[in-house]
């Protein structure tokens, strides 16, 4: 059967995270910092709205583009939070999670062989979603020394006459990086100069810390008309299983994406669309409350890494820290496997998010503080037992025995 599989599908490598998942699943009593979804249950008033829609018997299809009421709620929310105006009937599409919206946008935009730029380390689906749409995925490495922000000079080097689009994800999974307006400006200038479309996955927009406000690239001059704003309810509202995402873009592109969506999916599930209306209209307080919890956990995890002498930039978004484990002399995979096997703590090797993730591990703080405390206590024991290589610039904190005492 193998030879019957389409070449461009067969050639997509197996996901590194999938391998790791299977090892973790075969073990008991593992504390996982490897989970990329909120640990909070969806706020009750949102779950209740889904139940209410079922009680009312709202079990049919919705419009292909999504419930008109939900599209209005999305346009209102985006206007309120991002300061961007979209016409709800023609410029908003409701999808099954942001993942589907990315796939739709790629398929709607790309002719075979056209190139899409994306920054790496990144969420695992970006490269494959470009390939599956017959495009060519071109990665731009981002570095710790730049706080994992995308640099315009690195991007410019990779632009060719075939470059069609740029895929952005800030705040970033797995690094937690954010891009303030001044960092986005030169990127926007390049997109204008080279007539590039921007697909901006802003799924973590609500989760920014230290008072850093999220800025959408679509708000920069001349960018709204060339940007697909991709967002959804999964992370900020703890609604991963509801599978509601959306795209806001100029009408011709939404129309093209809708053509694919209507034949492939028809519409997003009806009951969760009703829940999404409730989330967008009345969910601000619950989102703020969860955001506050994440920020405390982030502080804790960063402090604990510094006490272990593991450099770890303080991320200002999402719910991940990308810890620099190069001073241990282990590769990120060796580090993750030994930590898992010897101390039963799961983190994700940075290489699962692209080759440039080597030397780092992703730790999610979308896990209860009690679990995080135990995980970091175990990690401190693990790190203390490793022979260390001095690394210039690496912060050395308290001795591990001291950090254990206070953990």
């Amino acid at each position: 059967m193998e030879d019957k599989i389409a070449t461009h599908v067969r050639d997509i490598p197996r996901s590194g995270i999938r391998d790791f998942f299977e090892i973790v699943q075969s073990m008991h009593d593992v504390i996982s910092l490897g989970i990329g979804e909120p640990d909070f249950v969806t706020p009750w008033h949102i779950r209740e709205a889904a139940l209410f829609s079922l009680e009312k018997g709202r079990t049919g299809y919705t419009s292909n583009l999504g419930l008109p009421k939900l599209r209005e709620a999305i346009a209102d929310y985006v206007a309120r939070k991002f300061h961007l105006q979209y016409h709800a009937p023609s410029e908003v599409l409701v999808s099954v999670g942001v993942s589907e919206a990315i796939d739709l946008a790629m398929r709607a935009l790309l002719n075979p062989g056209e190139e899409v730029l994306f920054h790496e380390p990144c969420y695992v689906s970006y490269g494959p979603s470009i390939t599956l749409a017959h495009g060519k995925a071109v990665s731009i490495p981002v570095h710790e020394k730049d706080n994992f922000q995308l640099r315009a000079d690195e991007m410019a080097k990779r632009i060719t006459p075939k470059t069609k689009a740029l895929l952005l994800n800030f705040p970033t999974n797995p690094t937690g990086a954010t891009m303030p307006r001044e960092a986005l400006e030169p990127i926007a200038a390049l997109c204008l100069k080279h007539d590039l479309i921007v697909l901006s996955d802003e799924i973590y927009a609500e989760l920014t810390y230290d008072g850093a406000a999220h800025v959408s690239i679509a708000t920069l001059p001349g960018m709204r008309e060339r940007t697909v704003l991709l967002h959804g309810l999964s992370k900020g509202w703890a609604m991963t299983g509801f599978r509601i995402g959306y795209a806001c873009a100029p009408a011709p592109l939404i129309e093209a994406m809708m053509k694919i969506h209507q034949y492939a999916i028809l519409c997003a599930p009806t009951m969760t669309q009703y829940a999404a209306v409730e989330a967008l209209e009345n969910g601000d307080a619950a989102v703020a409350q969860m955001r506050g919890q994440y920020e405390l956990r982030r502080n804790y995890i960063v402090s604990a890494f510094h006490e272990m002498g593991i450099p770890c930039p303080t991320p200002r978004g999402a719910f991940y820290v990308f810890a620099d484990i190069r001073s241990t002399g282990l590769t990120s995979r060796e580090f993750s496997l030994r930590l898992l096997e010897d101390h039963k703590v799961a983190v994700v090797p940075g290489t699962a998010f692209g080759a440039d993730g080597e030397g780092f591990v992703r730790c999610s703080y979308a896990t209860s503080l009690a679990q995080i405390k135990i995980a970091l206590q175990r990690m401190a024991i693990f790190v203390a037992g490793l022979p260390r290589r001095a690394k210039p610039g690496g912060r050395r904190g308290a001795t591990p025995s001291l950090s254990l005492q206070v953990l």
Partner: protein
Amino acid sequence: METLLRLLQQDANTSREDLARLLHLSVEETNTRIAALEKEGVIRGYQAIVDRERLDKNTVTAFIEVRITPERGGGFDRIAQRIAKFDQVVSCYLISGGYDLLVVVEGGSLREVASFVSEKLSTIESVISTATHFRLKTYKENGALLTSDLPEDRLPVSP
């Protein structure tokens, strides 16, 4: 300060080192802030939250509606403070509506609470009437749900 108070309300036992990590402060600064809150009387003390039912199956909690005759000059305060001083009284509130005081009483048995009501509470001169409601089951206590919401069934690793 609000966050520090919230953390202490959730778990007053959290070590100063952990509080410092959570708030991105030094341990000294954390200690200074807590000392200030204690000095200002914002923090009145630290208690253990005890589930009496686990200790003694016979423990009962009663919510008692009390109607009283207010006094000229003192209103409800003097009599409410008098009731609140009894060790059996866990909480005591002045309430709007059909009665005046809501008194929460804990006791070792139904008989014990009943005798407190009939011998101590009802016999106070200004008390017109009482209505005692016994707790049958607790679903939420001090903001914490005592029935678990959903099982933990997240995937152990996800992108």
